[in-house]
């Protein structure tokens, strides 16, 4: 009987394992292999020729290929850091608003916040490109009411990247708020009651109960926020095309431009490998940091 279950487990797993194997794991291995090859994306894999670490030397070298890649890497790092720094605190604040029972409307707020997460990024991009319009966009109009002069938003190299961060945070914050609420629900109410009896005020309760017990949720949120942040594509492809002067050239856009549009498959793959390595290092560092905190 055990044997037939094993056979049926194989049948159950076959479709998913085959599909993920062929369309995710195999391409991932191919990306690593191609990063050591001279290969044009328009030719079969068999045309690739081994060139050792040349692709990596080039993407970190002094030529325009290297300059563009390093800029894209830096832009992506800044973009990711800004996203996480905005998303984590906002998700906790909004999560507390949704979770609390002193004032009605928490669930309604959750619905409003989460609804933006359903909106296709392309629609977000279209809408915000108009919201940000320096001449007749409503954002500058609202700022004008507060006596603040018109901003250039997406048209200035100084503010374009942060402007894209803002529209992404606006779209995704509902998801992270729901995660935060899930974490808050797990904290036993008896802890707060005991703290109140001991004379702890609200700020102390937040500092010594809420935040520590939310740390696992925040770790999970941080990982997801990082993975999401490196995927930003539509606003860059549609509005800024990486500009002005390279200020919004981020990795997903840049790798696609090099590897697909310019068909430099080897170079693009080397960049993709660097992205993968960077993510592995950062996520491992986050977990190590979280575990050390747990031990304390």
């Amino acid at each position, binding site marked *: 009987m055990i044997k037939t*279950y*094993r056979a*049926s*487990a194989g*049948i159950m*797993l076959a*479709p*998913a*394992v085959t*599909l*993920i194997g062929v*369309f*995710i794991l195999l*391409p991932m291995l*191919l*990306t690593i292999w*191609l990063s050591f090859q001279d290969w044009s*994306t328009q030719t079969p*894999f068999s045309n690739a020729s081994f060139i050792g670490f040349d692709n990596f030397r080039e993407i970190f070298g002094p030529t325009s290929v290297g300059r563009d890649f390093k800029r894209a890497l830096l832009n992506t790092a800044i973009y990711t850091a800004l996203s996480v720094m905005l998303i984590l605190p906002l998700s906790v604040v*909004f999560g507390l*608003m949704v979770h609390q029972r*002193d*004032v009605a409307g928490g669930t309604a*707020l959750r619905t409003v*916040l*989460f*609804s*933006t997460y*359903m*909106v*296709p*990024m*392309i*629609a*977000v991009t*279209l*809408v*915000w490109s*108009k919201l940000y319009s320096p001449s007749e966009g*409503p954002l500058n*109009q609202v700022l004008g009411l507060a006596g603040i002069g018109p901003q250039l938003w997406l048209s200035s190299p100084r503010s374009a990247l942060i402007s894209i961060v803002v529209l992404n945070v606006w779209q995704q914050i509902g*998801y992270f708020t*729901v*995660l935060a609420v*899930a*974490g808050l*629900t*797990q904290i036993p109410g008896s802890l707060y009651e005991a703290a109140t009896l001991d004379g702890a005020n609200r700020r102390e309760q937040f500092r010594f109960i809420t935040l520590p017990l939310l740390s696992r*949720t925040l770790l999970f949120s941080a990982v997801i926020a990082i*993975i999401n942040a*490196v*995927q930003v594509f539509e606003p860059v*492809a*549609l509005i800024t095309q990486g500009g002005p002067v390279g200020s919004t050239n981020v990795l997903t856009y840049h790798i*696609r431009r090099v*590897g*697909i549009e310019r068909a430099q*498959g080897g170079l693009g793959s080397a960049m*993709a490998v660097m*992205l993968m390595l960077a993510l592995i290092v950062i996520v491992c560092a986050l977990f190590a940091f979280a575990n050390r905190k747990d031990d304390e």
Partner: protein
Amino acid sequence: MSAPGRSASSRLARKRLAGRGALLATLMLLVAVASAFPLLWMVLSSLKTPAETMQVPPVWIPRTPTLEAYEKVSGVINVGRSMWNSLVIATITTAGILVTSMMAGYAFAKHHFPGRSLLFSVLIATMFLPPIVTLIPLYRLVGSIGLNASLAGIIVPNLANAFGIFLMRQFIAGVPDDLIDAARMDGASELLILFKIVAPSVAPAIAALALFAFVYHWNSYLWPLTVLQGNAHEYPIVISLSRLLSYNRGALNTGLVMAGATLAVLPPLVLFVLLQRFFVDSIVGSAVKG
């Protein structure tokens, strides 16, 4: 509790609490307005006349709402065909994900076989892989099996994913073993057990996964754009829309762009409003149980 000496201080405390409540309510309202504003403005602008979208200071609410912009969208892109393509992509992909995820989730939850946890870890790791990492070889791979520039090329690589397997395993693990063993005693096949006994008891999770998959693949942009290679006939709505932005640069096309955006937003948003409970439950399930 109402000792006479404390009533004055408790009244003061209640007053302070009411003040904090008012402040909190105001903040919550501000957050809700900021969150809802872009979409409200999108719908309002889509109903304005071109003259109204150009006006400074801006007209917030259109005086004579008109569907002119929506007609113009149909002139620039093939709305019907694009919506149909999106529907085909999202529906078939979702159906595939449901079947593959339920089967694999059942195997991981209720079968014992060597290497189970290793295989599970490898599959789950792909959940954290940004699509751009595999995009270049995948593009070539799909081309080499003759699927590029077609809807099949968009759909086939997405018929299974780690999130679905993970979610199904989490929920199927909670189905009592006795229920499954009894059916096995009766000689039911594993597939029959999965679809007749296990599936009904995890129906909410299946609904959640279906909604997630549908919305995700309705909205997805990078892969369809790459694999279609400019074959506009097969464009899903989100890619067709990108042509609106370059049509008539500047404020002139605002109404047009907003009408197009509204069209693309409607299907996922309507699904969400109808079924948001499932969305939220499954996110909570995937985060907390993980």
